[in-house]
């Protein structure tokens, strides 16, 4: 494989699963129970290639260790497959706008008109390489698991075809280097998600859930579309990367190095904020944040491996990817950043609250996913390099342990004969030891217990939130910021007031481009968000271990649907669990200590923008935050144990304890009902009106037109009386008419 160029390898990563999907579609019926082979072969090959690319890119970036490591240069490789669209002279950028070519001569072709081109270009940079590796590797593990889980399903080939198709779409999404191509694959993953949620489409709940997911995602896609239009209008291009025009001038891409190096390259203000908020809307739709989170719990109607891959590890992370990729855009609009954080932290808290009262194991995990994604958004919204890298770090660890937890839940569901209501079974650790052990590992990681992976990533998120909330607290830990840009004398939050270096951290956390005072981006906001996140950490631990105790501890109870299924999963399902448990346990610790991921990610062009690197802080382990986090988690676990450990595992503890609040959370804060009343019912009414209009007015018109000749005929038919003299009279009158006309003509 070394003989293949990186460009070819990059193209292979999405191409191999696509080939697998096509082969499965064509040969699925023929292969029968071996229909998984093309898909798994494709994904496995893609995983190997992705890992190779990851290692190769990592080599390029260089080592992180040592305090004297040279500053990281951005690494990116673009390969253009073909020109999808090209319209000459489509756009004339206004004078002095960001779309005008900065610092270079106007194109000598006469006028400053630019062509509208959409190249299907793929890019390889650290962010993409990381995500490609995650997608393909976890995809492979889940695919192997599905061989056992979907074994007797009649739609076996269809599952693997759509699964492969999804891996292809997701790979293309993270590898695309053009906003329009991203949009295409954004929709494609949505479509694959629809197909997988509604896999058992004969079940009305599944069909409804798939429809709901698609429609809610559509709202987000609308945001992405508007953002694309605004980006085109503002920047005159949709490419991420810089492109070379035929006459030698560089056309800067939106996130290209030429633009990022220029202080005024990114547009802020109202337009910039609008773009960022639209991107946030898109991310909310895909990553199930408030208020567009309603589809994810219902999406649990799909097969559990689909939930594991799509709704835990990969598709829902597309929103995180989009915001992370657009980091420079967000850095120019501090209010948008703060909005991201607020949305994320609020979602985390609300989802956590709802998860505490769910009795369906998969629903607990679904809300847990929403909550953890909220964490990632909160981290992204801090607008610091640490925030961005911490979000991606959490994304990686979350992918491992959430996939593990979902596969474990699938294992439980499989052996319980399709029952997933935790109140109906208990004490399963005796029946399914491997599942229980791996599930426990995943739960510890999710709860953020040291030294499991979730602890480290959550700690970093809390650290960045804390740093934004109390800007002076960590002042002594940071070096002097590079003074390459003007720092504005801005009012600081009340902090500790100790003697700080001349360059305050506050000025470092603000984008040098924003000239207006930010409304939301204040330390007070981030203090509130920090406390919310801390409480959410406690809640996470609580509901996770509530689920663990209810399922695996206590007296062994098996529902009658289980029949003779109540045993440990077959090796094809148990092995992936073990495989995923390993990184869930140790990946966090290893990545944190070696700082490999953080250092690696700083080579991403988006994160190597001066605006972002200005916020860099040296790596440190914040003991106080670690203690706070662990304390919160411990409290949560203890309360869960009090409520549900052992003999009390099946009792209605939450109902007794919370009373009416339990009903409120169990009904998902009535958000679904709100949507149903505000949006769904009026739309159904409108659809009814349209249907009635179609049936009575339009069909009536058409039928009326059809009935017209018959009616006319009916009128004329009355003339055919069969009476001879009436016919003669008619004839005579006709003749007289003719004669009259002739006589009239001839008079005079």
């Amino acid at each position, binding site marked *: 494989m070394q003989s293949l160029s990186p460009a070819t390898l990059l193209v292979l990563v999405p191409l191999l699963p696509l080939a697998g999907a096509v082969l499965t579609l064509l040969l699925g019926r023929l292969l029968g129970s071996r229909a998984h082979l093309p898909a798994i072969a494709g994904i496995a090959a893609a995983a190997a290639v992705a890992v190779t690319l990851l290692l190769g890119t990592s080599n390029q970036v260089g080592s992180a260790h040592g305090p004297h490591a040279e500053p990281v240069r951005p690494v990116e490789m673009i390969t253009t497959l073909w020109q999808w669209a090209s319209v000459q002279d489509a756009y004339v950028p206004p004078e002095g706008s960001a779309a005008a070519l900065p610092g270079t001569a106007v194109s000598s072709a006469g006028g400053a008109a630019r062509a509208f081109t959409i190249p299907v270009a793929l890019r390889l940079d650290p962010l993409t390489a990381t995500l490609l590796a995650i997608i393909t590797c976890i995809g492979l593990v889940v695919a192997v698991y599905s061989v056992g889980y979907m074994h007797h399903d009649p739609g076996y080939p269809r599952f693997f075809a759509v699964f492969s198709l999804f891996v292809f779409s997701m790979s293309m999404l993270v590898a695309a280097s053009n906003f329009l191509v991203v949009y295409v694959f954004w929709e494609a993953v949505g479509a694959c998600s629809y197909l997988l949620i509604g896999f058992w489409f004969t079940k009305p709940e599944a069909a409804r859930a798939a429809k709901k997911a698609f429609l809610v995602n559509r709202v987000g896609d609308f945001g992405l579309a508007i953002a694309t239009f605004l980006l085109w209008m503002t920047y005159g291009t949709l490419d991420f990367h810089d492109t070379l025009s035929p006459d030698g001038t560089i056309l800067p891409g939106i996130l290209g190095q030429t633009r990022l190096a220029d202080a005024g390259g990114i547009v802020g203000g109202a337009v910039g904020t609008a773009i960022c908020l639209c991107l946030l809307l898109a991310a909310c739709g895909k990553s199930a944040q408030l208020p567009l989170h309603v589809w994810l719990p219902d999406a649990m109607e799909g097969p559990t491996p689909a939930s594991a891959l799509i709704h835990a590890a990969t598709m829902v992370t597309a929103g995180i990817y989009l915001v992370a990729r657009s980091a420079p855009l967000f850095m120019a609009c501090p209010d948008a950043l703060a909005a991201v954080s607020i949305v994320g932290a609020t979602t985390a808290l609300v989802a956590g609250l709802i998860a505490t009262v769910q009795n369906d194991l998969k629903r607990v995990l679904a809300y847990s996913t929403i909550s953890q994604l909220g964490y990632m958004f909160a981290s992204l919204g801090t607008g610091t390099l640490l925030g961005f890298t911490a979000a991606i770090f959490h994304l990686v660890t979350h992918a491992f342990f959430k996939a593990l937890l979902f596969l474990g839940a699938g294992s439980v569901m499989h052996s319980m004969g399709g029952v997933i209501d935790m109140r109906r079974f208990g004490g399963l650790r005796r029946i399914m030891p491997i599942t229980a052990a791996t599930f426990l590992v995943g739960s510890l990681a999710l709860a953020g217990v040291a030294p499991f992976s979730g602890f480290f990533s959550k700690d970093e998120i809390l650290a960045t939130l804390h740093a934004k909330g109390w800007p002076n607290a960590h002042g002594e830990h940071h070096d002097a910021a590079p003074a390459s840009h003007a720092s504005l004398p801005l009012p600081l939050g009340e902090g500790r007031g100790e003697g700080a270096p001349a360059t305050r951290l506050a000025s470092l956390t603000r984008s040098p481009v924003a000239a207006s005072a930010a409304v939301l981006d204040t330390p007070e906001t981030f203090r509130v968000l920090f406390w919310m996140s801390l409480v959410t950490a406690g809640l996470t631990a609580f509901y996770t271990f509530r689920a663990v105790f209810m399922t695996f501890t206590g007296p062994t109870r098996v529902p009658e649907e289980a029949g003779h299924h109540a045993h440990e999963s077959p090796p094809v399902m148990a092995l992936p669990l073990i495989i995923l448990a390993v990184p869930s346990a140790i990946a966090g610790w290893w990545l944190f200590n070696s700082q490999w991921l953080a250092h690696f990610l700083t080579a991403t062009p988006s994160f190597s923008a001066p605006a972002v690197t200005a916020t860099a802080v040296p790596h440190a382990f914040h003991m106080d935050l670690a203690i706070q986090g662990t304390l919160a988690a411990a409290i949560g676990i203890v309360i869960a144990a009090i409520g549900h450990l052992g003999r009390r595992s099946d009792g209605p503890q939450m109902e007794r304890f919370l009373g009416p609040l339990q009903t409120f959370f169990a009904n998902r804060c009535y958000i679904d009902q709100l949507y149903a009343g505000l949006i769904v019912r009026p739309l159904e009414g409108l659809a009814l009106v349209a249907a009635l209009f179609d049936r009575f007015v339009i069909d009536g018109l058409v039928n009326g037109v059809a009935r017209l000749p018959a009616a006319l005929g009916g009128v004329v038919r009355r003339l055919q009386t069969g*009476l001879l*003299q*009436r016919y003669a*009279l008619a004839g*005579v*009158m006709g003749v*007289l008419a003719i*004669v*009259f006309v002739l*006589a009239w003509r001839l*008079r005079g």
Partner: protein
Amino acid sequence: MNGSLPALTPGLLLAGAVTAAAVSLWLLLPRGAENRLARWLGLVLGAVALAGFIAAGRRLGSLGEEAVFLTVALVAVVSGAATIVTRSPVYSAIWFALSLAGVAGVLLVLGAQFLGVATIVVYAGAILVMFLFVLMLAQPSGLAPYDRVSNEPLLSAVAGAVLLGLLSLSIGRLSADASCCAAPTRAAAVTGPAQPSVPAEPVGDDPLAVDQVARLGGELFGRHLLAVEVAGVLLLAALIGAIAVVTRGEAALEQDRRLAAGGGNR
């Protein structure tokens, strides 16, 4: 009525006469229940119409001519109107016979003596007698219900009025514009080789009066020989056809009666 309106144009007079005739016909036609008033009114209007037509006609040379023509024309027209108006079909046939007499008189006035007599002989003598025979066979006693009603009397009267109006107006315009009609040509120049013994110039006022039958016969068998022969064949065909239909019709009737087995159409 005749001289009261000196400004009456011929056209208007004719239109008035036609309208009156139409209305009178409508009133007189059998329309269900017997209505004395309608009858009388119709008769009066009919008289008015006739007066109008007379007024719209041209004056002939002498009073005697005028009187004779008027008499026979009135007989023909009034009898004709009575034919179609009378309820009883027998009376209708009798009125028709009278109308034939009138028409024969008109033909005589026009100088077609042979045709006048032929009309009487053929029509009144043969055709009318046939009609009466059929009536005798088929007419029920008293007035049948279908004799007492008419089919669309109003529309038919209007149609007749329109037709008559058009025709009379055309006739009026025709004879008013004398130049449109060529002077009567010499009979000899048009008839061709008919009778070489016929003198070349017309005699008196009536060029067709002399040797009329002979000359008519010569014309028929001379110029129109083929048509005469065809007419003869037509008569033969009619004869055979009538007999054939009768005999076949009777056979079919027998069949019908056998099939109906008691229920008949009668």
